[in-house]
């Protein structure tokens, strides 16, 4: 990996170290010389780079995995508990999918249209939990566990890329 030249002026050594660790896997990429100043905004080009295809692919893969896991868990829940609980789980899983999409969109816009990550996506979960607590047909636990399906998909993806890196 081409590490930054010693003469390259950086705002802090720690920042360059963290960037090196983020750029693992891009051995032939030469670093662009910039001189960031603490507190000054860093302007990115307004148009997404071609390397963003990799990001969109990851996003799509995570959404697909979440939907597959949702379907795979929905049926056993229906069999072992009831249709009502399974539908509650499905509601939570759909909320999780929407949440993951919003998070992915926020990350894609970070540094371009947005300067900071918002937390508006949490409002979806808050709304669903409040509605579930007010209605007798809805249960909080299946909805919350359904919401966490996206996390299971991420863990699955991480394990897959760690154990079988050539499978992608």
């Amino acid at each position, binding site marked *: 990996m081409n590490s*930054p030249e010693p003469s390259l002026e950086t705002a802090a050594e720690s*920042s360059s170290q*963290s*960037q090196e660790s*983020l*750029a693992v*896997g*891009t051995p032939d*990429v030469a*670093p*662009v010389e*910039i001189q*960031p100043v603490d507190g000054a905004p*860093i*302007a*990115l*080009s307004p148009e*997404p*780079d071609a*390397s*963003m*295809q*990799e*990001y*969109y692919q*990851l*996003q799509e893969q*995570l959404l697909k995995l979440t939907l597959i896991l949702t379907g795979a868990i929905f049926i056993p829940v229906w069999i072992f508990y009831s249709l009502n609980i399974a539908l509650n789980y499905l509601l939570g899983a759909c909320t999780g999918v929407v949440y*993951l999409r919003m*998070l*992915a969109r926020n*990350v*894609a816009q*970070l*540094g371009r249209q947005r300067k*900071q*990550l918002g937390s508006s996506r*949490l409002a979806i*979960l*808050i709304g669903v*939990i*409040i509605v579930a*607590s*007010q209605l007798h047909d809805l249960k*909080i636990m299946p909805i*919350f566990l359904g*919401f*966490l399906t*996206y*996390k299971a998909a*991420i863990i699955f*993806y*991480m394990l897959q890329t760690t154990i079988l890196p050539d499978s992608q």
Partner: protein
Amino acid sequence: MNPTVAAASVLAAALAVGLGAIGPGIGQGNAAGRAVEGIARQPEAEGKIRGTLLLSLAFMEALTIYGLVVALVLLFANPFS
């Protein structure tokens, strides 16, 4: 509901969200800032950096969500009432 239980629940909900959001907030801010700096330095690695950021943010935000759910349960479906 017993007023003591109600007051304790409201305080516990506030603490759950407030304290639970401090760590992830700092972590997310650091991660996002470093990622944008990294993209500015190496635009060619943008997809990889943003992908790593997405995965790490998804894990970090879970801590806030746990606190949030505990707080919402205490406020709207209190098991001690």
